């Protein structure tokens, strides 16, 4: 079981490393969107500190969503996906591997760059630590839930916009608890509760989403 997952992960990582521009452009999208907010609302540190968790999280949702269509589209185009579906391994496991690989190239870089952007918003050290940790444990849920949307919109016209309509409402709990953890830390309430719920969302979506995604892929491949 772990063999097939790790095989898919290493394959997808290898493919992603051959096209590093995709990873970097999603990352810079994240950086640019976050940097636009101070320009829009003004440079007062108090205001920025208040906005920071929400802005960073919304930007993280959008950046994750941008890279979702590529999750299955390339494999679908060259027929790999059909071969994977025909393989003796359960398709859900293959999807689990793909989701983890997607997180490694889209969610993980966001978590690594987030503290730097947080400094721009004048966040305290405690808040920066919680923010990084929250993005680290929250983004796998985004990849998992997003995979369902990516599979449902596979090969449809206007897939990108449609994907955002389907996926963004389902991202709301992650946004609430992710930004809530940082908020609670800033106000001194402690973000542990939010972080636990965030971790719960991640585990639940990593456990269930791949199977829903597999069902959606089978519908798309019919």
């Amino acid at each position, binding site marked *: 079981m772990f063999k097939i997952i790790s095989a898919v992960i290493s394959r997808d990582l290898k493919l992603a490393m051959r096209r590093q521009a995709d990873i970097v452009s999603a990352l810079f999208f994240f950086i640019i969107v976050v940097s636009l907010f101070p320009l829009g609302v003004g440079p007062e540190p108090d205001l920025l500190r208040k906005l920071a968790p929400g802005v960073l999280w919304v930007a993280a949702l959008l950046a994750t969503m941008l890279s979702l269509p590529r999750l299955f589209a390339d494999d679908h185009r060259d027929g790999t996906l059909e071969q994977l579906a025909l393989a003796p391994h359960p398709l859900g496991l293959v999807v689990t591997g793909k989701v983890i690989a997607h997180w490694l190239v889209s969610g993980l870089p966001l978590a690594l760059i987030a503290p730097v952007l947080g400094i721009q918003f004048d966040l305290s050290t405690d808040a920066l630590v919680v923010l990084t940790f929250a993005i680290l444990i929250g983004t796998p849920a985004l990849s998992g839930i997003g995979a369902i949307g990516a599979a449902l919109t596979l090969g*449809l016209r206007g897939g990108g916009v449609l994907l955002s309509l389907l996926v963004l*409402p389902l991202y*709301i709990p992650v946004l609430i608890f992710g930004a809530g953890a940082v908020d609670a830390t800033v106000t001194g309430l402690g973000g542990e509760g939010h972080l636990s719920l965030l971790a719960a969302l991640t585990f639940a979506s990593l456990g269930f989403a791949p199977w829903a995604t597999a069902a959606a892929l089978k*519908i798309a491949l019919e």
Partner: protein
Amino acid sequence: MKDRFNLYRFASPATFYPLAGALTPFFFAVAAVFGLAGLWLGMLVAPTDFQQGEGYRIIFIHVPASWMSMFIYLIMAGWAAIGLAFNTRLSGMMAQALAPTGALMAFLSLWTGALWGKPMWGAWWVWDARLTSELILLFLYIGYMALTAAIDDARRADKAGALLLLVGVVNIPIIYFSVQWWNTLHQGSSVNLSKSSMATTMLWGMLLMAMCFWMYSIAVAFMRVRTIMLERERNTEWVKTLLAGDEK
């Protein structure tokens, strides 16, 4: 031996089409009766609320619309589950026929809520848990309709939409509780089976209006499902004979 009456016979569009056509006026009539009774009770008989004045009477539209918006989503998810499990043609059509009515109810609920909120809370919109989750429900309806509209192949549209509905129905409690912990201002639920905080006439008015909305939803969904059937089955024998019969 004579054939027993079999409900499953109506799982086929060819047999369900005339049945839906025959039942539609009946449901419209029942909706009108309930609606008139509910409006009479709600607008004329029910006492003026001592806190909210006459403005509270919008709940006779607002609450039934909110109930129906949630109820219809559940019904659609139920059809989705049946469709995926038994591969029936009618389920997907029913889910698609219900979606616009559900979205309409969610929108009505938000709109009447805003009209009520302005005099009572002093704001058209507040970011409160129930309002926000109703808005998200509207987004879910719109996502479903956009997905099914984007897929040309009707069978794939049904199945993909069904999967989305099931994913959505699993997520609704999660979304609801996350939004509730996030913020709460909306007044608590007024209807309680054992002890209601409302006058009996108000409760009856609201229940009658809910019945009216329910019957209306069924009637409109039947009308819509008939059009969907004709469109999808236009190449089949029964539609051709039906349409030929109409032209004579």
